[in-house]
């Protein structure tokens, strides 16, 4: 069964596309996830996803009115709205400095409400399922190219500005004394995150994108001893989830996004339990020596 999956992975076009998109998703999600977790903004991807959905629903609505020139691909308006959502979060975050999560609730509710309205107006509520849960097995060539370009842009941004973005994420108030223009880097980060979330949406789904970013990092934090090791461990967990998620989706015909997230959570629980056992044994050993 597993062998058939492996051979199909490279022989069937749709499987190969799913594999490439999955591998890129497996790197991008936890890479940005580490920054999101450091800044204690774990719900941000969820929020941006909901706002991206507004763009998609508006796009579908305009298409239903016959306006198709610019909006044939709902993803484009999804990206634009995701950026608007990101800027809104930043705006509310500043006005509720000590209650940053309030900004997420405001934007996520607005996103959900507007999406429901425009999906209903467009009379295409049937397509909602795909956007909510994503499907990596049905991605097109066009999508694979798009996610590849996104990955290259993110990689370039990290090569040139990774240090600054990391410094602002760990300690926003001290970044100014390191010569960093905090506002510019906040802006760059939020735009990058908005674009990545809306691009990953098609494969991961609005409801699951946040888990793909945060859960591998949560597991990585249990084992990591440095930023670098935590990031690498998170990416390894993420890739394992993508691979076995694809296998489960293909073999027992369940939704790919749901399979990936379930495996992610299984890894997290496994690591948590093992770590608890190891720590308990170590303490017992120390007690014996004393």
């Amino acid at each position: 069964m597993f062998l058939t999956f492996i051979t199909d992975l490279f022989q069937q076009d749709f499987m190969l596309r799913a594999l490439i998109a999955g591998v890129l998703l497996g790197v991008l999600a936890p890479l940005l996830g580490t920054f999101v977790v450091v800044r204690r903004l774990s719900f941000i991807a969820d929020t941006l996803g909901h706002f991206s959905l507004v763009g998609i629903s508006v796009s579908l609505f305009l298409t239903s009115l016959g306006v198709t020139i610019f909006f044939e691909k709902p993803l484009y308006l999804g990206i634009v709205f995701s950026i608007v959502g990101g800027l809104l979060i930043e705006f509310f975050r500043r006005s509720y400095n000590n209650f940053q999560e309030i900004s997420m609730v405001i934007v996520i509710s607005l996103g959900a409400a507007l999406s429901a309205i425009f999906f209903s107006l467009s009379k295409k509520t049937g397509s909602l399922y795909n956007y909510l849960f994503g499907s990596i097995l049905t991605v097109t060539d066009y999508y694979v190219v798009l996610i590849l370009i996104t990955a290259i842009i993110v990689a370039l941004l990290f090569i040139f500005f990774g240090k600054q973005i990391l410094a602002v994420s760990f300690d926003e108030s001290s970044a100014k004394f390191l010569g960093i223009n905090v506002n510019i880097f906040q802006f760059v980060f939020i735009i990058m995150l908005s674009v990545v979330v809306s691009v990953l949406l098609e494969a991961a789904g609005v409801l699951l994108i946040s888990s793909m970013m945060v859960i591998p990092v949560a597991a990585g934090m249990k084992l990591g001893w440095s930023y670098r090791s935590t990031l690498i461990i998170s990416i390894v967990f993420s890739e394992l989830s993508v691979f076995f998620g694809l296998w489960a989706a293909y073999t027992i015909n369940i939704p790919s996004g749901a399979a990936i997230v379930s495996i992610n959570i299984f890894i997290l629980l496994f690591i948590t339990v093992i770590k608890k056992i190891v720590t308990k044994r170590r303490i017992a050993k120390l007690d014996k020596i004393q």
Partner: protein
Amino acid sequence: MQININNLSFAYGTKTIISNLSLTLNSGDYLVIRGKNGSGKSTFIKCLLGVNQVKTGMIFFDKIDINSFKTWTKFGYVSQSFDSFNYEFPITVGELLSISSLKKTSESERLRLLEKMGIFEIVNQNINSLSGGQLQRVFIVRAMLNNPEVLILDEPTASIDKQNKEFFYKTIEDLHQQGITIILITHNDDFESLNYTHLLSMYGDLTTSFEERGVELSEGVL
């Protein structure tokens, strides 16, 4: 760097915290700001660092108004209990210093600073496994990485033991000897033994006094 503060007043909403404070510091001065909790010390520092927007009064750095001042790398800042830093996410001391030295400070320079502070051996340790004293030394090294002209330390001895406190004051003394302007905030009374040049006392009732060691210079009264 010359720091010039003219008739500074600051309020959170309708609650006035600082009233008519004026002082001048020159390069190489060592200012101790003392006062009880809630007397406005940290508020004053936030004004000085541009975190609190000053509406009444003026602040100049080398005759440049704070609102047009851009070269904040001339300041090194160690905040109170490092509360702005997220040290629950794994990051090693070496990594932290690497992301904090944007002026291409070489790795050997960073290691030299760590050695000077007596914490060379913890370079590969996770920040969240350090003691209060070690953490404080790391943050001082971080503040010193970009060769600041002014080093500001907010309640630096609040969470460290006596031995670390002595080491800390000696380190600050060395940095002062090198010509760095020091601004040190404390609510303890142990500052008398320090070689400070200026003292700003904040009494908590909006009155303040600013004096050069032994010579009273100005008094700000409500």
